[in-house]
């Protein structure tokens, strides 16, 4: 089957029920997307399919119909996205393991809703666990990214 990931086509030959996560990590070698729980409970594996956030640990690769974006595909080559920049400005990550998933969920939120309220952030982000408890800075980063995106029209 053919998968379009971050704009590149990949021909892969695996069981159709293999979760997208393990195709990305073990078959293609894109390890920015993380394994956390395997049952769509923690959000560490969040990627986009046609811009919508999905839990790749529980998404059979055979059902992927659209274009896949992973953390490696955000921004443009050598340039971080506004969300990633806000994450650095606010010194958000601690251990960092969940952050790819957090950033993918936040990016999807902001592309649907350029001015999220705290309640909007709660709804969009409550599927992503951070055991280090970086939540206060995740919230601050999302607000900051929203502001930056408005200012630059990005």
């Amino acid at each position, binding site marked *: 089957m053919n998968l379009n990931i971050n704009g590149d086509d990949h021909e892969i030959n695996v069981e159709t029920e293999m979760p997208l996560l393990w195709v990305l990590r073990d078959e293609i070698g894109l*390890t*920015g997307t993380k*394994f956390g729980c395997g049952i769509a409970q923690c959000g560490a594996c969040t990627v986009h399919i046609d811009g919508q956030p999905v839990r790749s640990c529980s998404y059979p690769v055979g059902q992927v119909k659209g274009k896949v974006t992973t953390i490696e595909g955000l921004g443009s080559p050598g340039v*971080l996205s506004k969300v990633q920049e806000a994450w650095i400005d606010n010194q958000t990550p601690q251990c960092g393991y969940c952050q790819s998933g957090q950033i993918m969920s936040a990016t999807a939120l902001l592309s649907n809703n350029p001015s999220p309220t705290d309640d909007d952030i709660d709804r969009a982000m409550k599927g992503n666990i951070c055991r280090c408890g970086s*939540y206060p800075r995740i919230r601050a980063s999302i607000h900051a990214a929203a502001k930056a995106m408005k200012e630059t029209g990005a």
Partner: protein
Amino acid sequence: MSKLGTITRRTFFVTSTAVVGGALFGTYKYKQPVPNPLLDGDDAIDPDFASPNPYIKIDKDGVTVITPRAEMGQGVHSTLAMMVAEELDLDWRTIKTEHGPASNSYYMSIMIEAMVGHQYDYSTSTQFKRRLTHIPAKFLGIQMTGGSMSTPDGFVKMRSAGASARLVLIQAAAIEWSVDPDSLTTEDGFVINPVNNEKLAYTALAVKAAEIDAPSHPPLRDPSRWRYIGKSVPRVDIPAKVDGTAEFAIDVKLEGMLHATIKMSPRFGAGIKSSDTSKAAAMPGVEKIITLKNEGFAVIANNTWRAFKAANAISVEWETASYPAEQAGIMKAYEASFNSEPNGKFDVKGDIDLYFADVGDFIEAEYRVPHLAHSTMEPMTAVAQVKDGRVDIWAGNQAPVVIRDAIMKIGDYKASDVHIHTTFLGGGFGRRAESDFTLAAYNIAAQTDGRPVKVTWSREEDIQHDFYRPAAIARFKGVMGEKKPAAIDVQIASPSIMLSMSKRGPIPAIGPDKLIAEGTAGQPDDIDHMRIQTFAPKLDIPVGFWRSVGASFNGFLHESFMDELAASKNIDPIAMRLEMFGDLAPPGNKVVEKVAQMAQWNGREGINGTDNDRGRGFAYTLSFGAHTAQIIDVSMTKQGIKIDKIYCAVDVGVAIDPRNIEAQIQSGIIYGLSSAMTGEITFADGKVVQSNYHDYPAMRIHQVPEIEVTILENNPQITGVGEPGTPPSIPALANAIFALTGQRIRELPMNKHVEFV
């Protein structure tokens, strides 16, 4: 491990005080500088770098600071690099950090300081005894990360490393220019001659500097001249953590690497009774299934998911466990332990039995806390390769020399044959101080004909094969005086973590286990009549270090009961706490006064004392040297209890990076509250019941309010910050719920008794 080290391990803990340790080994040997592992490792055969000491590497591309403590989210690489940069005059933007190799040279020098005195005691004699413990610690040579020790351990070490490197670079420049070294200055990676403004980069001086002996005790700068310490700098590890390039063990890629997982006995210590692996072995992508010492299986495959699937397809009947199979039976063993000889007695003041025999009214309460798992976001994972007599391990780990020594013993290797590559840790919290997952990876890689293998645990294996924060039962008796408690008598039953760890690690368990009581014992409580007794039920359920260790439950026990005593006489808990300090710990008074000011504290019930839908709770714990006071505000909503705001004042002695300290304190609070609200590991049929985040939940973003942190610097000594946020968070919430509802929560997790948003 040197022979001396081995002898030290066997004999040192027999001696009752570290002072004896000092006399035994003498200061001569202690004062010799540690060998530099950078000049003796993989890169040292034909080095293209200079290394004046074990912490600094200078090559043509720049300066790399070896930060030999595990970066598990606490920002330790930046904290330690700031200390070096402060003395070496580096430009922060050019700084590179590396974990470096496993080496006894990176020993934790303050590892056994906690054996000496109370944490709030800074008398000259206690400080002297603390310093003496650095001598046996050096001979133990344990490189580890934990106990909130990295910052206090590194504070002099890392600055000295920077200062000493600076001196040799200046000398090298002085030779080059034929001038007096005292006439030269340094700035942002250059030696400068102020007379003619000539500059030489450290990178250009590295080769010459390598020939000059570095002083081991260079003078350190006066704090008034600090440029980095006390300011917030961008953490060096963060850019890679937002673009997916940060490498955790689970991300290591090697040529020809296999992917494996494990399936261990769900009953601790119980082996395989019978099994059938034929179905699993025939599944797609499976290379091999092996048994691990009859304790479980490893499935070796070409893809992690295929390995997981095959592991599920192994059919196996396990032996029964030695401990009671059901939760109720386990707790019965705890209850029974109260009738045994105490494991330890702490803070004994006055004649408690006589006092309680005479006193009329007293308050009694029993508290219970459950076992807890760590549930780091990255499940246990390690990569291993065993080839041509050489072992390589890639793992996020908190104790690299312990892993190295264990592998040397299993496979009869020399230290130089075993290479531990420490990656970023996807969370540690104490779990990655254990060597089980790295040794399993070694044992698996020993059977793959030299091919590297990545061993990834499923979340279920991770939660069900932890070294748990032990459960505890505590029985308190107390008498309230005029303004503060007049007497408390405490009995705590909880298994000894040190005993459990001694069965699998290098440190023997001798004498009472202080960890059972820490956080109830050792508090600056100026109470006339006191006694804390501990009881240690023996069960073969592995227990280990969990963020803040004994204080993780003793903070809840002690501070909940203090709140009960205050409430019994309708006394304000903060007024009572300030009375309780006496003259014991002035920095404690200051954090309590500060948090009260931050929250505009005006009593426990409602923000203004009138609003029945709101309540606030206060708690204070001294742990890991840091006085920490918190106030939590809660309110009742239709969906349940909501945490509205958290205030914390913490005293760290010297704040290295305030922004990072804030993050760590918030992190410790959220980790504590996660456990308080919903965290519980229980047993049925000898197995852990919980298995993943649906039944072992963590706090999520919608439950976390604003957390305001104020950092104070009154403590006479610098402290770490990874753990002190955790202990008071749990009782502050329980006390807030009492203020809100009148319900006293004496059993965790709290969601057994109340509902949360």
